[in-house]
């Protein structure tokens, strides 16, 4: 986590976040370089989701600085918008727009936020639907699709904004087991294309395959940061060992 090896695309510096009197993040620092794949794990309530939600300011942090590609969150609408253009996000509950067709879900952002023409946006949308392997579903509505398909549409929707960074907030936690792999496959493919990714997940097989860096959080703190080989074999902290014990041997 030193700054001198490569320039960081995301710099999180001593960030604290409170919900009322509860401190969800306790002076958290983390740097992510371009192309790096970071997997964040930890028990529920440890602050993993809160941390990545602070990056595109779905949650506002009270202390510390978050800088994305040279732009620091300063509370102004201009920097917020600039950062959100660079950061895509995939949610646990998909959050597709239920009243819009798959294609309209994908083109809304490009047309309204990026100023693309409808025709160009549709071309782009079809391109990303191919990439998540469901181009034939473009005219359907979200509730006609399976959970796995919906999540892939959600990934495509984010990619249509052509972000530099993709955040995944437990993308497979709401899925039936047989649908988890189709989503993980799309994410793995995305990782191999060089996308910078931060993934909050309990899918340790995926983490082993894809992650450059593993981050373990507990009680609002980053407890352990290590490459996966070390992380899974011999983590330094007892808390992390304990967590891995539980999650890997159930």
């Amino acid at each position, binding site marked *: 986590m030193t700054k001198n090896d490569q320039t960081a695309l995301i710099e999180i510096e001593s960030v604290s976040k409170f919900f009322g009197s509860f401190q969800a993040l306790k002076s958290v620092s983390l740097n992510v370089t371009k192309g790096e794949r970071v997997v964040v794990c930890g028990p529920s309530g440890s602050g993993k989701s809160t941390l990545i939600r602070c990056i595109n300011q*779905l949650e506002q942090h009270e202390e510390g600085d978050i800088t994305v590609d040279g732009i620091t969150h300063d509370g102004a609408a201009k920097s917020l918008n600039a950062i*959100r253009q660079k950061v895509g996000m995939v949610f646990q*509950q998909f959050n597709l727009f239920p*009243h819009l067709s798959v294609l309209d879900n994908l083109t*809304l*952002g490009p047309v309204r936020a990026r100023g693309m023409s409808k025709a160009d946006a549709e071309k782009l949308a079809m391109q990303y639907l191919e990439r998540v392997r469901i181009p034939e579903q473009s005219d359907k509505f979200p509730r006609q699709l399976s959970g796995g398909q919906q999540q892939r549409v959600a990934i495509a929707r984010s990619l249509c904004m052509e972000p530099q960074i993709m955040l995944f907030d437990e993308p497979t936690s709401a899925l039936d087991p047989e649908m988890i792999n189709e989503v993980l496959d799309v994410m793995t493919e995305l990782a191999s294309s060089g996308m910078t990714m931060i993934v909050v997940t309990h899918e340790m097989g995926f983490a082993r395959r894809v992650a450059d860096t593993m981050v373990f959080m507990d009680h609002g703190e980053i407890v352990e940061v290590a490459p996966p080989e070390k992380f899974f074999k011999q983590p330094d902290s007892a808390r992390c060992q304990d967590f891995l014990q539980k999650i890997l041997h159930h």
Partner: protein
Amino acid sequence: MFKKLFPLLLLVPLSGCAGGNWGWYVVDPTTTSGYNNVWFLLTGLYYTVLLSVTAIVISIVIGLLVALPGLSTNKYLRGFNRVYVEFVRAVPILVLILWVYYGLPQLAGIAIGVFWAGVIALALSDSAFEAEIFRAGIQSIDKGQYEASHSISLNYYDTMRFVILPQAIRRILPALGNQLVYMLKMSSLVSVIGMQELTRKANELVVTEYRPLEIYTILVLEYLVLILIVSAGVRWLERRMQTDERN
């Protein structure tokens, strides 16, 4: 007593039969005077519909503009919403009509016609209810929809216009339909300032024909038919919007 009311309950012959205490000849379209009377009553439809529709459109716009600040995190904006809703909701419609028609010109220094006085009073009065309906509808939308909109960089206006309101309006359509029905009925109150709508026409005819029972019965039926048409229209719209989403 029951004997006298019984024919009314059956809403019997709207034809020319003039049995018992009924004097249907007043509105018998087969006679010249009856035909003229019926036509006279029906001409009130134009203003009843025009007044109600204009008022509901304006009240929906005001209602939305009042509802949005009510959803803000800013307490002054929320305060504005509360004060508006509580204040406007507390004024009886009839009182508001009188105030706008007789009082407002004195305050503003300009004359306001009967039609616009009616529209303003009805729209204002209804806007407070519309605001509450919109607020409830918008609040019922999952916050994940906002988060997804933010994450694809939509601004507030686009988020509302393309994501939140289309979903909210589907949900509040039955309530909006209720308000339209309510508005149609309340438009009868504008007769007190001389608006030539259904109720006023009926009143005028009663004064010349002395047949309140028959004429007001026709009036009841006029509102009934109008409102059944509106209900059918709203249900049709509901079905159409739902198939949009569910297919």
